[in-house]
């Protein structure tokens, strides 16, 4: 079953033209919120999950809690969280619909944060802080699917699954049996590490199987939470199909390197596409026990299985929503924000993949052409300083094939090849998108490139917009 991302070209809603015309620029997005500061301070001072714990138990869990809050604060300072956009309004609207329809189930009102992370992820912590990523929003088809994800996370919060997990962990870690085993291992002179490893593996198996039950319970409660809302359950549970194929960026992107990189200015050399690595196929077969252990360590059961279970538990839902049309604009805005975050964090290979995907499917993504020149210029600078690996991963066995070919292509380039590609991208950039800032950005490529004819062409291209321009 593959992910069906039927994308019809929609009429651009009011927000996007403003965005791309520069009226709303990326820099104008709001990353600060007094409410966030206030809420986090309140939550830090009142961590209910630690109430009633003994000193020994606090010693185990308090450092984790402290570390968690530090992560939230770090992400906030790093401008990972976004406030006051149309996306925030949509997420808030969905979440409040669910909350208002089920108030009696909640002990406190959750606090919602929108994160610009590319991970297709959302979570709700033990404090009622709920984080939804733009990487998730751009993935789902409609508001019903997003509502299911939010409802699922709120279900965990209502059912106090964090407390349950912690109690279980404490029950095991604090049991006399476990403590006895640890003491015994400490006393051993030999085979200490192996014994400790086996003990931890058993613990992991126990806790992970328990997690599967919690996920099923959260699914079931999510269905209940959505029943009295405007969201269509039949449409909502289809999010399981979507999440089944989460690596869609890599597998569904058509890199088509020969077409993209074979130009008259820079013909594609087959050596760029050749994987130079010898096949070193030496591997260790897993024992049956190890395979079982690896399966059992997945904390979430198979999405396909969950979808079947959910289908069986609901009747056909005919609810409709007039928000469906507008949701596509939210998705597009999310895709754009996510991409720009990735570019800012210099996850360039991944950004480039997203650009290719968006360009193929969205008319409005033509502006992203300018980023390509910049990306290749950054590759050139990075390779010169031996830092290319931080911008583009090396080929690895678990990568989808198409992405593997792409990273092989990138790593086959030299400093000068990257520079040349950057300049060819400039030539392919429509004049209206050229800017002096872009010229500044790709200066290094211009200096490094040894193809004088190409440089003259690029300079002429620029002069068509900026008459007196010189690199």
């Amino acid at each position: 079953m593959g992910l069906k991302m039927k994308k019809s070209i929609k009429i651009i809603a009011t927000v996007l033209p403003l965005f791309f015309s520069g009226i709303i620029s990326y820099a104008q997005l709001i990353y600060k919120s007094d409410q966030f500061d206030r809420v986090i301070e309140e939550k830090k001072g009142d961590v209910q999950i630690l109430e009633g714990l003994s000193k020994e138990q606090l010693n185990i869990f308090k450092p984790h809690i402290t570390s968690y809050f530090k992560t939230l604060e770090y992400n906030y300072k790093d401008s990972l969280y976004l406030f006051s956009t149309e996306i925030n309004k949509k997420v808030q609207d969905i979440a409040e619909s669910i909350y208002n329809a089920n108030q009696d189930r909640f002990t406190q009102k959750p606090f919602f944060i929108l994160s610009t992370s590319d991970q297709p992820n959302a979570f709700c912590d033990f404090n009622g802080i709920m984080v939804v990523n733009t990487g998730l929003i751009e993935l789902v088809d409609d508001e019903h699917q997003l509502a299911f994800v939010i409802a699922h996370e709120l279900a965990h919060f209502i059912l106090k699954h964090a407390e349950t997990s912690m109690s279980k962990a404490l029950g095991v870690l604090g049991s006399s049996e476990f403590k006895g085993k640890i003491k015994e291992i400490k006393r051993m002179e030999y085979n200490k590490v192996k014994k400790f490893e086996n003990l931890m593996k058993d613990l992991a198996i126990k806790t992970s199987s328990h997690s599967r039950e919690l996920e099923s319970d959260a699914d079931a409660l999510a269905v209940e939470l959505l029943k009295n809302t405007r969201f269509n359950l039949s449409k909502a549970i289809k999010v399981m199909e979507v999440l089944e194929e989460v690596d869609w960026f890599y597998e569904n992107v058509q890199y088509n390197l020969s077409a993209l990189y074979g130009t008259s200015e820079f013909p594609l050399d087959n050596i760029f596409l050749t994987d130079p690595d010898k096949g070193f196929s030496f591997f260790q077969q897993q024992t049956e026990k190890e395979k079982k252990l690896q399966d059992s360590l997945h904390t979430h059961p198979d999405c396909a299985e969950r979808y079947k279970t959910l289908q069986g538990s609901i009747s056909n839902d005919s609810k409709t929503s007039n928000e469906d049309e507008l949701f596509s604009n939210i998705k597009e805005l999310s895709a754009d924000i996510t991409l720009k975050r990735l570019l800012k964090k210099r996850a360039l290979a991944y950004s480039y993949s997203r650009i290719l995907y968006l360009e193929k499917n969205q008319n409005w993504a033509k502006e992203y052409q300018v980023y390509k020149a910049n990306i290749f210029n950054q590759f050139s600078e990075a390779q010169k300083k031996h830092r290319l690996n931080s911008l583009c991963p090396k080929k690895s066995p678990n990568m989808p094939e198409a992405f593997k070919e792409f990273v092989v292509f990138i790593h086959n380039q030299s400093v000068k090849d990257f520079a040349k590609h950057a300049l060819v991208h400039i030539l392919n950039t429509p004049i209206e998108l050229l800017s002096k800032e872009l010229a500044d950005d790709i200066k290094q490529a211009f200096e490094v490139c040894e193809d004088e004819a190409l440089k003259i062409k690029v300079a002429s291209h620029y002069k068509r917009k900026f008459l007196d321009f010189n690199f």
Partner: protein
Amino acid sequence: MKRNQLIIGLMLFSGISFSQKKTFSDIRKFRIRNTGAIVQSGEVTGSYIFYQKDKVDKKNNLYVIEFLGPNLESVGTKEIVASKFENLTQAAYDGTSLCLRFFNPREKTISYQLYDNKASLVKELKSGELNKYALMTENAALNQNLETFSNFSELGQAGGFVGYEATKPKKTGFDVQYFDAKSGKKWKYSSPASESMHLYPSYLCSTDKIVYTLVAKKKSAMTRDIDYHVYANRLSDGKYMFDLPPKDNKYQYMYYSAFNHPGTDHTTFLGMYFNLGDKLLKAKSQGLVMHTINSKGEDVEKKHVSWARDISKLLTADQRLKIKDAGNMYFHHIFRSPQGKIYAVAEQYKKVFAAGASALSMLGSGSGANAHPSAKLVIEDLFVYEFSKNFELEGVKVFDKEKSNQNMGPGSLYYSSQILGKLAKGYGFFDYAYTQQNKVKDNFTVCYMDYNKDEGKKRKTMKFYAATKQAESDFVTDKISLETDATSLRTLRAKPGHVVILEYFKKEKKLEMRLEKFNY
């Protein structure tokens, strides 16, 4: 970022790591020498890391061998129980099986473990107790992290592996072991018991029918009189076929390397030549030789390039000033490039009197009567000589480096420059690292280190240099900073055009590896 178990999330996608480094944590006991490249057909195809995980009993430990692919991706892990004195010294891959070579300095043995592609052990071979010379050589290689130790190799397309040992009760002589997991073939050749000369073997090359071994022969362990023979053993059963003589009616020879001519039964040996009667460990060479033979050991061609007659006149005045006499060049490698040209890589050094060390030695010995003056080797620049396919000198490239001074120890002043050069190589005093050929990109890279030798542990100025030569262009040199706070650092040969840098942080019990690509 580690997920806190208290945060229940819909974590469904684990993104690809963009980390520049591969990190191994919680490595309790690790010796940086127990890492290396996995070689296949002369090219690096992966790496291995060998470290202790657990104590099993009084005598044995549980070790982990991590196998990494050419991009440092994990391809497999093997746990083995072995003696606590065991060291994994080399690994090679012949296309179907992986062979690990171990050295146990306590038991004084070499052992080989052969694994198939499913990491199942198919064969284990163990030598007898090594004799004094072999033990000394193994310990030196271990302590100096020497990678180019040619006592073990895979045989490329022919398949299988050879290993050389010298075991008791032999005081002289050696054994060659061959084994191939695919065919199951195995043989052992022992040099004749009647052989009175001391023999020191090292692998040169092989064809699909013959294994060639360079054998240094001396009358006694202490003599400086040495000859270099080339033994040919039949690959099918190890039978001794012939011995390439070390001299002809004009010169005597010392070979460094060899290569085959595909489609023929010819093999060419590259090395230096000396006047007849010269003591090779003392005399200066007269020049370079290229000697081609067929599978019967018959001469096909022999060409000589003389320092005085041929090379000197082609040097610039500057280069001639630098190369006062070619005898103080230590030749690290002589090879044929992908384009068919011949290159010789050498490092210049001078022997000088180490006044300070000698004075200390004299003072320490009281009256001075038993004082042993020391020599100091001043290691200087790196030279690469370029020859055409027909072995005519075409050019010399000099790579300037920081000079380094290496004290050779009490009594070393009495040794010849040539012996001191060999000792310096054994101790790892030279800056040359290795030469790497890239058949896909049709170039080769000469790698060396350079840094301010008086500097301390932080190695702020340490850099790894990679000089790459493409056909018809000059060398392009790239440098990679090795500045680090690591407890120990090692560079490893990697896949063509790359180097692996290993840093071990003892306090944090962490090993970091990164793969760097050369720019050219």
